[in-house]
C-alpha cells in the first residue's frame, strides 16, 4: 500500500501477510481460502482476462477439493502461523465488526470463515474511493468482494476491475425510425445489470409518441402494453446519456460518481452516501436509487461483473446505466444493443474514424436531447 493514502484505513494484518509467500488470511498453508488463487493479480498488475478466468476456474476446483479434505477446527487453529500481534488484530476486528460476527466466531468450526468475513466487512466499510485507488488497491477490493460472495453464497463470481483503454471514447446512436417498441432492450438490461426485481427498476425507458406532434415527452407513454408498433406512433428510448459535461458528477459531494477516460459516467456504489443530489441534477432521468435492498433471485444473477458496473448493489445507493461497462470494456456491445432486434441501437468508439458510430454522426442528421443545457450527451438520435 502506498504512503500517500488519501483516506483513513485500518490495516488489520492482511496487508502484512500478503507479503509472505504461501500464507493467506485463512491461515491454511495451501489453497482453499481463495486469496491464493486471486493472489497473482496483486503481484502481477498486467494480468490478462484469461489468466483471471483461469484463476477463478482453479479456485472453483479447489473449493470442491477442500470440501472433501476439510480439516477439523482444532487442526486449523494449530496449523496456523500466528504471532501475538496478528492474533490481537484478528480479535479486534471481530470485536469491532459486530456482535453477530463475534458470536459466530465463537463456534470453533465456522470460526475461520466468520473471522475472514468480519475482516472483509471491516476493510470494505473503511476502504477508500475507487476513483482514487491505485491499480493494486482496486484489485484488492475486487478480490475481497469476490471472496465475500464466495463465503456468503458458496458460489463464485467473476469481477473485473478493468480500466478504460486509451483511444476509446464510447458513443451511442439511436435510430428513431427503426425502434418498434418491443422493449427487448429493457429486459436484457435488467437481466444483464442485476437490477432490483421488486421495484422493477429499469435504466431504459421507451417513449411511445404520436406521429406528427414532435417530441412531446409529456404526452408520450413510456409504460404501454399493447401490440407494437402501434399505428401512428413512433418510439424513442432514453437512458443515461453519459454526458461529457455531466451535471450529476459536478454536484456529488463526495466524488462517488465521475466520468471515466473512455467517457462512461460511473458510480462507486460503496462510496455513494445516498444523498440523491445527482438525481435532482440529471436532466435526463438517467439515475436510479435503491430505495430498499435490491433483490435478484440467485439463479438469475449475472456472475460476469465489473466493480463499476453490474455487481450487486446495496440499499440506499445510486445506480445507473454504465453502457454495460463489464461488456463494453471487453469489446462487446452493451446488452441493449445486442438484444435490440431492429438494429436501432448503435454503439462504438467515437475516436475510431472507421467506426460505425462515427459514420452515423458524419452522415446522418443527428441530434441530442436538451442540447441547450450544455451537458454534451454522448447519445445521439437520428432518423433514416
Amino acid at each position, binding site marked *: 500500500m502506498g504512503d500517500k493514502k488519501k483516506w483513513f484505513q485500518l490495516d488489520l494484518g492482511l496487508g502484512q501477510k500478503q507479503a509472505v509467500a504461501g500464507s493467506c488470511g485463512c491461515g491454511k498453508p495451501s489453497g482453499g481460502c481463495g486469496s491464493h488463487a486471486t493472489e497473482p493479480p496483486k503481484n502481477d498488475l498486467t494480468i490478462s482476462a484469461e489468466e483471471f478466468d483461469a484463476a477463478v476456474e482453479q479456485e472453483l476446483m479447489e473449493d470442491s477439493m477442500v470440501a472433501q479434505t476439510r480439516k477439523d477446527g482444532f487442526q486449523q487453529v494449530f496449523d496456523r502461523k500466528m504471532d501475538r500481534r496478528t492474533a490481537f488484530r484478528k480479535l479486534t476486528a471481530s470485536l469491532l465488526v459486530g456482535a453477530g460476527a463475534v458470536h459466530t466466531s465463537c463456534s470453533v468450526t465456522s470460526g475461520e470463515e466468520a473471522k475472514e468475513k468480519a475482516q472483509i466487512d471491516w476493510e470494505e466499510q473503511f476502504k477508500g474511493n475507487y476513483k482514487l485507488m491505485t491499480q493494486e488497491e482496486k484489485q484488492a477490493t475486487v478480490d475481497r468482494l469476490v471472496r465475500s460472495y464466495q463465503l456468503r453464497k458458496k458460489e463464485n463470481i467473476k469481477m473485473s476491475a478493468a480500466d478504460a483503454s486509451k483511444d476509446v471514447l464510447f458513443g451511442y446512436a439511436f435510430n428513431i425510425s427503426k425502434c418498434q417498441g418491443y422493449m427487448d432492450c429493457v429486459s436484457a438490461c435488467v437481466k444483464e445489470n442485476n437490477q432490483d426485481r421488486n421495484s422493477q427498476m429499469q435504466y431504459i425507458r421507451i417513449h411511445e409518441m404520436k406521429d406528427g406532434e414532435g417530441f*412531446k415527452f409529456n404526452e408520450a407513454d413510456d409504460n404501454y402494453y399493447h401490440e407494437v408498433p402501434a399505428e401512428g406512433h413512433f418510439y424513442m428510448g432514453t437512458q443515461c446519456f453519459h454526458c461529457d459535461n455531466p451535471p450529476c458528477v*459536478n454536484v*456529488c459531494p463526495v466524488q462517488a460518481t465521475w466520468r471515466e477516460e473512455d467517457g462512461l459516467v460511473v458510480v462507486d456504489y460503496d462510496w455513494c452516501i445516498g*444523498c440523491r443530489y445527482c438525481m*435532482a441534477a440529471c436532466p435526463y432521468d438517467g439515475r436510479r*436509487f435503491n430505495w430498499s*435492498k435490491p433483490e435478484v433471485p440467485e439463479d438469475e444473477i449475472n456472475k460476469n461483473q465489473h466493480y463499476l458496473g453490474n455487481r450487486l448493489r446495496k440499499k440506499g445507493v445510486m445506480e445507473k446505466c454504465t453502457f454495460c461497462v463489464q461488456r463494453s470494456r471487453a469489446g462487446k456491445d452493451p446488452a441493449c444493443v445486442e438484444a435490440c432486434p431492429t438494429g436501432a441501437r448503435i454503439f462504438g468508439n467515437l475516436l475510431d474514424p472507421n467506426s460505425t458510430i462515427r459514420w452515423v454522426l458524419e452522415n446522418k442528421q443527428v441530434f441530442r436531447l436538451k442540447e441547450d443545457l450544455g451537458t454534451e450527451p454522448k447519445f445521439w438520435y437520428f432518423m433514416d
Partner: protein
Amino acid sequence: MGTFRAFRHMVKDSLDYITHGSKTYHIWMIFLTVIMLIGMYCYSIQLDEGLSVTGMTDRVSWGLYISNFTFLVGVAAAAVMLVMPTYVLKDIDFKQAVLIGEGLAVAALVMCLAFVVADMGGPSVLWHMIPGIGVFNFPNSMLAWDVIVLNGYLFINITIPLYILFRHYQGKEAKSKVYIPGSIISVLWAVAIHLVTAFLYEGLQARPFWNNALLGPRFLASAFAAGPALIILVLAAIRKFSEFKIEDKTISKIAMIVTVAAQINLIMLISELFKEFYAPTHHSESAYYLFFGLEGKTALLPWIWTAIPLNVLATVLLTFHKLRNNTKVLYFCCFILFVAIWIEKGFGLIVPGFIPGPYGKIAEYTPTWIEIWVTLGIWAMGAFVFTMLAKTSIGIELGKLRYKKKKILKSETV
C-alpha cells in the same frame, strides 16, 4: 488550570440546572422526549427497510426532510440578524434577544444536520463527507459547500455565546475584542449559509423551477421574515414562563425586521408569479402544478392556497404600525407568517421542482407516516436542544448560575 475548572463547573452546574425546573418545564420536556422516541423508532424502521418507507420515489427524490432542512437553514441564518445591531452597532436593546437568537440558530442547525442525515441512503458511510478522511468534491459540489458553511456556522454560533456565557458565569464582562470579530464573521456567514443553500437548487439546469436567479434573494428575504417571527414567538414564551426581562422595545424592533423582510418577500413572490404566468413556457409547468394542478394532479393546492393568503394577510397586518404594536396581533401575524413560509419554502419549493419529471411524467408525492414522525421527532429534538440552551443562558444571565455560588442556586427554580 483555573479556567478549565471553571468550565467543568459550568458544565456541571448547567446539567444540574436543566434537570431541575417547574412542573410545566418537566411536562414540556417529557412531551418532547416522547415525540423524539417515536421519531427514533420510526427512523429505526427506515434504517432497516431503506428509504422505501418514505413517500419518496425516483420521480420525487427529495421530500419532507429536505424541505424542512431548507426552511431551517433560513431560521438559523435569521437568528444572526439580531447579532448585527447588538454587537456590531452597539445597540444594547437586543442584548437579551441575541443569546436566545443564537441558541435558536444552534437548535435550527442541529435540526438541519439531523434532517440531512435522515435523508441519506447510507448514514453509515457519512464519514466520506468529512474533509481529510473522506473525499470532498470541493469546490464543484454545492452540497460540499453547504456542509462546510453549515458546520462552520454551527461552530461560530456555539463558540460566541459560550464565550459570553462563560465570562458571565465567572462574573466577568465579556471582552468585546474577542467576540466582535466573531460576530462580524457570523453575520456574513449567515448570509452565506442561506445563499449557498439556495445555490444548491439554483445551480441545477435540470430543474427549471429552481434554476432561477431570484431564488437566492428570495431565500434570504423569507428567512429574515420567518426566523425573527419565530424569535418573537419564542421571546413571548420566555417572557411568560421565566423571569427573564424582555423589553417591548426589543420585540417591536424585531417586528420591524419581520415586516420589512415580509414585504420584500411578497414583492419577489409577485415578480415570480408574473414571470411564470404572464408568458408561460414549458418551464412554467412546475408553477402551474403548484398553483393550479396539472393533468388532474392537485396534491399541493390546499397547501399553497393556505400559504399565500396567510402570507399576504400577515404582511398587510404587519405593515400598519398600530396593528403591529398590538402584541396579540403581532403574535398572531408572526405565527401565520411562520406557517406560510414553512409551507412555501418547504415542500412548496422542493416538491414542484420534481414535478413534472425530466420527461414530463407526473408522479405525486405524499409523505408517509414514518416520514412525518421522523420529522416531528427532529423538530422535537430541536425544541429540546433549544429549551436546554435557553434555560442555561437565562440562568447565567439572570445570575442564578454563578461560579462558586452553587449553594444559593439549589433552592431556586425557574
